[in-house]
């Protein structure tokens, strides 16, 4: 059983985290060079949500829902 849904399925969460409905917005994946709508990204539910590029699987976005709001980290390695 696959563990992911497409980004549409978490459109509400993304809208809360980013302030607007972003599912139709395209993001350029710096890892594989392809552009995909965020609604087409693969959303994995771990401790937080991870949106992975549907082409190469690299994380494009991590969203953590905190008490006060959201922590959003773009890219594959937000710490560096």
């Amino acid at each position: 059983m696959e563990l992911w849904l497409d980004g549409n399925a978490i459109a509400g969460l993304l809208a809360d985290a980013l302030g607007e409905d972003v599912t139709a917005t395209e993001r350029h994946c710096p890892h594989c060079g392809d552009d995909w709508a965020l609604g087409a990204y693969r959303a994995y539910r771990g401790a937080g949500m991870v949106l992975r590029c549907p082409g190469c699987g690299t994380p494009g976005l991590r969203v953590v829902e905190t008490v006060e709001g959201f922590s959003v980290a773009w890219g594959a390695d937000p710490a560096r």
Partner: protein
Amino acid sequence: MAGAALLERLTVARAPVVWRLARVRAVEEAAEAAVTIVLDVDDWPGHAAGQHVDVRLTAEDGYQAQRSYSIASAPEDPGLALTVERIDDGEVSPYLAGELREGDEFELRGPVGGHFTWRVQDGGPLLLVAGGSGFVPLRAMLRHRAAQGSDVDSRLLVSARGWEHVLYRDELSSFGDVHVHVTLTREQPPGWSGSARRVDAEMLRELGPGPEERPRVFVCGPTAFVERAADLLVELGHHPAAIHAERFGPTGR
């Protein structure tokens, strides 16, 4: 530590999303073990057919559960409608499709989902492929089409386990000049003239339209159904980017 390390600018339309109070106006049967809930929602901003909402329930001890449901009503319909199928060992659906009654309240967030929407001005032809409760957002699209008096070439394929499970059975003939094909995969009533098997290439080819007509394709339902249907459509020559897919998965919060 938190926040964006890489700055990526996105240009999107403004659509602020907040939790609103929804009050149940009516609960109607949609199929065996499924109900359509008609709601009045404070300050509802309107929606596009295909979008969904998040529903949040709060128990008396503060425990909360949240699920997403596709909007079943057209933007032109009075009241916002959701169709919920009762999953026996579910946590939320037995409540919404069993206990909920007129006057009850819960929170609702939306509408969301700009990727899986169809407006009459988007044009056609339209090919809609529904697996089980995946019919819900597609029904909203067809109601919108009818409300706008559109005659866009539209074809609908509905797959369900049995006739009692087909949502909106009584509406199928009311969509006007929409070509509807139903396939019942497990049980068929006597004299059944539709298909009696899982969706396959032949069924899709027969329904059409072909890829040369460049239809807008919307596929919705359980993940396995959507993957299979999308693969079949691609094999028939439809471009992957022309296929909008919405997968219903078991990841409630």
